[in-house]
């Protein structure tokens, strides 16, 4: 299964964290940092696959041990984890790292392409993959175009939620749910349309909602 999806920029700032096994915030930060430490040290010409047992292996579950009543389950899982090789695959696009962390049940190359699916979907959703970069790194835009920053921020807020939506369409509970970016896009558009219509009913003047509804 897929254990986590991490999107961060080249300075190691997380842009999106999604762990399919619960991690407390501190742990999430720690994992993100260690993943970044690994990735930042890798030159461009080496493979995109990294053995991540040291980062995600047994450590992950020791953090759960503080919860006594799940200790049993944890132990069971822990044993499973020990024998499974956790790997991470990443893609470096502009200033962003897209990182998938997964266990031995998944095909590594397929995971690499799943990142591609995600990126393509985001690309289609946000019209241009470069914009992804812009969306997250609004500095440049802010500096260049004071005027538009407002919209960029808006977009940041919305894109953050929308990215989660997209990711939820592709990966569900750690399993690959949908691999066709077209269908993901369709689903996401439908969600936003319905959300819009429902929210417009409650918050937006009718005339506006009518326009959006179209």
């Amino acid at each position, binding site marked *: 299964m897929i254990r986590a999806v991490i999107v961060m920029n080249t300075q190691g700032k997380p842009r999106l964290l999604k762990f399919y096994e619960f991690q407390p915030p501190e742990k999430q930060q720690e994992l993100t940092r260690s993943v970044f430490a690994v990735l930042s040290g890798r030159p461009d010409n080496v493979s995109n696959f990294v053995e991540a047992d040291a980062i995600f292996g047994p450590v992950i579950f020791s953090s759960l041990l503080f919860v006594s009543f799940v200790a049993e389950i944890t132990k069971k899982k822990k044993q499973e984890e020990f024998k499974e090789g956790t790997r991470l695959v990443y893609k470096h696009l502009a200033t962003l790292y897209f990182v998938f962390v997964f266990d031995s049940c998944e*095909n590594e190359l397929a995971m690499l392409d799943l990142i591609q699916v995600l990126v393509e979907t985001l690309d289609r959703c946000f019209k241009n993959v470069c914009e992804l970069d812009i969306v997250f790194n609004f500095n440049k835009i802010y500096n260049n175009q004071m005027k538009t920053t407002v919209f960029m921020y808006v977009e940041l807020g919305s894109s953050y939620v929308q990215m989660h939506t997209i990711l939820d369409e592709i990966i569900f509970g750690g399993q690959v749910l949908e691999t066709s970016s077209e*269908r993901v896009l369709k689903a996401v558009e439908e969600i*936003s349309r319905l959300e819009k219509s429902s929210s417009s009913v409650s918050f937006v003047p009718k005339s506006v909602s009518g326009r959006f509804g179209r």
Partner: protein
Amino acid sequence: MEQLKTIGRELAMGSQGGGWTGQSKEFLDLVKSIGEARSKAEEDRIILREIESLRRRIAEPDVPRRRMKEYIIRLVYAEMLGHDASFGYIHAVKMTHDDSLSLKRTGYLAVTLFLSDDHDLIILIVNTIQKDLRSDNYLIVCAALTAACKLINEETIPAVLPQVVDLLAHPKEAVRKKAVMALHRFYQRSPASVSHLISNFRKRLCDNDPGVMGATLCPLFDLITADVNSYKDLVISFVSILKQVAERRLPKAYDYHQMAAPFIQIKLLKILALLGSGDKQASGHIYNVLGDIFRKCESSSNIGNAVLYECICCVSSIYPNAKLLDAAAESTSKLIKINPDVAEEHQLAVIDCLEDPDDTLKRKTFELLYKMTKSTNVEVIVDRMIDYMISINDNHYKTEIASRCVELAEQFAPSNQWFIQTMNKVFEHAGDLVNVRVAHNLMRLIAEGFGEDDEGADSQLRSSAVNSYLRILGEPKLPSLFLQVICWVLGEYGTADGKYSASYIIGKLCDVTEAHLCNDTVKAYAISAIMKICAFEIAAGRKVEMLPECQSLIDELSASHSTDLQQRAYELQALLCLHSQAVESVIPLDASCEDIEVDRNLSFLDSFVQQSIEKGARPYIPEIERSGMFSVSNYTSQHQHETSSHTLRFEAYELPKPSPTPAAPQISVSTRTTDLVPVPETTYYTENNQASKLQPVLDASSADHGIKLHLVGVQKKWGRPTYSASSSTTSSSEKKTNGVTHLDGVSLQSQGTLYDSKGQQSEKQKLAASLFGASAGKTEKKPTSTQRAPKANTATAERPGVARAVSPEISKQKAASSPPPDLLDLGEPISTTTPTIDPFEQLEGLIGPTPGPSTLDNSVTTSEQKAPDLMALYTDTPPSSSSSISSGLGDLHSADKNSPMAKNVPSIKKGPNPQDSLQKDATARHVGVTPTGNNPNLFRDLLG
């Protein structure tokens, strides 16, 4: 300009996806300032400030819902940046209760990111999830499923399970898909709680929507991993799905980089690999579709390689199919073709591992090397292995490495020269750990050369071997097995190329015996070698000058405690007195590889037997009868014996009393007269059976012998302590080997030490091998070993390869038998019988009646053991060696009666040519062994 454009697009999109508009200025400022933060500390400061303000604001009463949504998103953001936002969790939970889709979704997103499945607040959400799962709005249902998947734990599964199951039939495929996944998640959490619903996955596999079908593969993959057998019936369905996918029957939306639904293909291939592994029938269904995919796969794209890779994995795990394996191998090798450096890198890694200080790593590496050895790299690898072998102290591992070296060297040796050098090294450093068989193989190789016509190369090989051995003999300490090889080679070929004088070699051999005082086996080899050299010298018409040390050695050995050594010494002395022609036929030059054919029935002795009987000799009494008295001690064997005797013989024979002593000399005479011939025969058989176990029947009886011998306590009488120790073992397999050993030791003294040491050694080796699986590799490689066949089998096609190894011994045997023989000859015939024993029969014997042969053998041995007193018995009824072999022939028994006196000379053949054997026979007679009743006198003369 470019940026302006993108911003313009951004703007357009912002208005298009305007559902999220309306964040406050503060949030924008926050995001902006974080984006501008130059350091982690600055960022932390900003977030902390933000959290403080949120904490204050969020607790205010009557926060507008849209504002609350923004706060929640800000909290999520803050938490993503690593700050605690737990104070807001409860508000996120509240937000999930909201009716608005947008707010509800935000709420669900927040709780799935905030809470773990054992958080206290979960209980507040379960109810909402339950309600939302029944919602009419499928998006709400989806959101609830997503949350359920993340938040529902083992205890709360029952609360939502019925709704989730209902959703499996939801009209929207997005919902069905997510329901399947949620169910899968529940299964992962607690397999027991959903085990009754597993059939639903099978149903969903047939869903109209490929997305749902694809999603179903995930749980099925897990289920199949856990329990392959209950899903074998799905193989055909999976195959047909895969076929359709590969044929692009899925909607275009699933195409990815010109591949048809690669992710689904990969998942299916993974599943098929599980289902097909070790199952021929299931694999049979898979082959076709796999072949199709192989053909369609293009490795130009990344995803194409992913599918190809999965195909290869699948091919390698299902029941092997040659065609597909070929295809797999080909596509794998493509990788290397694309970039040979890829492979090189790994080669270097292997080399690094070899130098690694970690022992485990080294061993693993050697295992790898062992597997990848070819004739091209054998030299390097074996050199490495030997170096490593020298450096370690662990005897067990040393043994393993040594045997591997030997195996590789035998299989891939580029030249005989190299082979011999390698073997020298192995013997030198791990001599006592090497299987005796290896030593015999080496001797064989030296004796036979490459089996080609090129005699020059062979003799060159031999002289180089002799040279290296003479050099090595200078070493202070050598393993006895190696010494045995050295002695044998020096004896056989030491003087062959004329480079070294006989006396030089003999001197060296004497040194060996002096240096290894306590090792009888080496001594036996050495004295045999001396004997051979002397024989060659005599045959060549030269006078043999006995070196003083050699003479003293002979004197010492003739007084040895070991009857074997004693006999050899006497044989040597006797040989020295014979004239050259006789010697030449006794020990022909370089005849160790000659074939010897044996007339087992001894039919040519019939007339002699008849003659003897007419002269009043006692008729032969079969072993069964004789054994009756002696096998009392062993209940089982007694029992066996009785039953078997019933089956074989219907009329009782009188139990023979030990006959008068005068007969004793006669035997020895007879043996002597018979000359060399009988001995080779026996040895040949023993060896043959012992080593190759070709005739299972033979083994069992040997095992019986082992027991009996032990019980009678023969060992003491014969003064070979080794046997008594080994005979105590009880397990049947061990018995078998022991039996053989015993026999060798006790009864085969003339041929003696060679065999018994070998038996013991091989027993050890076998044990080691079976314990540690050292021999496992061997079997795999068996087929390849035939490559070396020319050496081993060219001439010997008709008989087992092992026999050849033995053949050198035969010549020795011949030599041994010629000098005044004695009681020992009795033993030899027995030895022939011993091998006829079979472990299975032995077992059978314990349960019920045993077949004749084994009992026969028993009787023989037992009587043999008693030999000293029973000698008389045998005077007339000499060793029935051949009888047991050819048991079942009625007349045999009468023929055997006289066999000892009769010239036991079964026609020995050197080479396949029958004429040769006849000639041999003739020479043997000519040499002065005319079998007559008067032989006793001859014997006395000799002894006198």
